[in-house]
Structure formats: C-alpha cells, structure tokens
C-alpha cells in the first residue's frame, strides 16, 4: 500500500508552477499597464491647448497703458508637464499553508469455534479460529495559498517628454516711469 508521507505532500505542492504562473500573470499585467500608459502618453501628446505665452504691456506717451496678447500657441499637455504615470510590480509573495492530518487504526477480531461429534464408538472434534486483522489509514490535507503583489508608480522614461528649449524673443519691457 502506497502511503505518502507529510514530507512528500509538501513536495507535491506545485510551487514551481505557481511561481511560473505568478510570473506570467505579472508580466501580462505589466504589459497591460504599460500599454495603457503609452496610450495615455499619446493622448497627452496629441491634446493641445491654445495658450497665450506672452503679453506686451506698453506705456504710451500720453500716459495710457495698453496690453497686447501675442498670438496663441498650441502646446501639448505633455509639453506643459503632464506625464503618464507608469506603474511597476515591486514585490511578489507566494504563501502556501498546508494542514496535513494522518490517522491510522487497527481492528483485530478473533472468533473461536469448537465442534465435537460422537457416535458408535467414534468421535471427532474440531476447533476453528478466525482472526480478522484490519488496518486503516486516513489522511486529510487542506491547503491554502496566498499571492500578494505590490505595485509602485515609477518615473516615466526620461525621453518621453520633449526637451524644452526656450528662446525668449519678447521685447524688453519698457521701464516704468518713475513718479517725480
């Protein structure tokens, strides 16, 4: 009769398969997260808003002041500093808990019987013994597993945002006339 030990039960836990499937699951989830972040980056790059980047303030000879907005410029949300958030799986834990209970019981029963016959100067006797020996094995195995992953936001790839080069060609503001 094959009786697996507690140690064998522990060895039977498909840990390599669990690790492999957890790894594949994380890789799949990471890919989906990255795809969504890349899609968000595209949206941010394609979404432009017209912004007036400069206003010219002019003090006229007659003392009046006028403001003139420069033509609006379309800038993308990526350009103004909105970046997609990238997430990364930082930690993965597999916990396997097993509760193994083994029982064995032995039942032995003995039946003794005797028979005797006599007649016409002859007799016979017999004794029979019946021994039944039962040995029972029982085993209960309960197992639970727990998979925990932790995700953290990470900085986006350094080149995802366009390099910002500023050429400030605005006219020098006219000096404020000092009150005299």
């Amino acid at each position, binding site marked *: 009769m094959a009786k697996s030990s507690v140690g064998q039960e522990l060895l039977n836990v498909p840990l390599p398969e669990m690790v492999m499937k957890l790894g594949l699951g994380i890789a799949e989830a990471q890919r989906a997260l990255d795809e969504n972040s890349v899609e968000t980056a595209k949206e941010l790059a394609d979404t432009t808003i017209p912004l007036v980047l400069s206003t010219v303030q002019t003090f006229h000879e007659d003392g009046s002041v006028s403001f003139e907005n420069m033509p609006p410029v379309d800038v993308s949300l990526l350009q103004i*500093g909105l970046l*997609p958030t990238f997430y990364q799986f930082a930690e993965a834990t597999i916990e396997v808990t097993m509760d193994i209970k083994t029982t064995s019981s032995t039942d032995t029963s003995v039946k003794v019987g005797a028979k005797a016959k006599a007649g016409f100067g002859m007799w016979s006797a017999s004794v029979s013994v019946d021994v039944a020996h039962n040995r029972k094995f029982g085993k209960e195995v309960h197992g639970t597993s727990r998979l925990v992953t932790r995700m953290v936001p990470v900085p986006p790839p350094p080149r995802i945002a366009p390099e910002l080069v500023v050429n400030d060609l605005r006219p020098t503001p006219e000096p404020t006339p000092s009150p005299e």
Partner: protein
Amino acid sequence: MAQRSNIARAFGAQIRVTPPDTGLFLVEGRTRPPGQIIAEFGGQIVLVIPGGNRILALLPGAAYPALLSHRDLRHIGPVSIDQERFAHFMEQSGLAR
C-alpha cells in the same frame, strides 16, 4: 475593493486590490466630455480641455478599474505632473507671475 474573475470563482479565491486614495487621470469620453461620469464616481474636474471630449480629473483610486471598462469612455489613464517642467512652463507663460 474585491474583484471576481472566472479563475477566482473556480478556486473560491478572494482577490482584493487596494488602489491609491486619489489620483489625477486623463479621461476621454466617446461622444461627449465625461464630466457627468466623473461626478458620478466622486471625481473632481481639474481642467476641461477645449476642442474635444477630454478632461483632467481627480478621481478616487477605486474608480479607476471600474472606469477602465466604462462603455461611454474611450480612454482613461493615470497622469502625474512634472513639477519642474510645469513650474517652468508657468513661469514662461506668465501665469505664475
């Protein structure tokens, strides 16, 4: 927040996802700006981007997984602000003065 998948149901497993409290999201509606949807999920509109159906909104993290599969949304994705670049832009545009 608990989610149930076919595999989880088959194994009687409980899957719990703990999202961040609040985050900034770019939300795009399919046919119209998704302001109403954002309000329904307890969000707050930060910027309605003109000329489209896109809105920048603060949303509870728990709303993100639910909104990912919302039929009236074309896209939702988490967004963060590059403080340095944003401050530089504000400075250059005169909005910070």
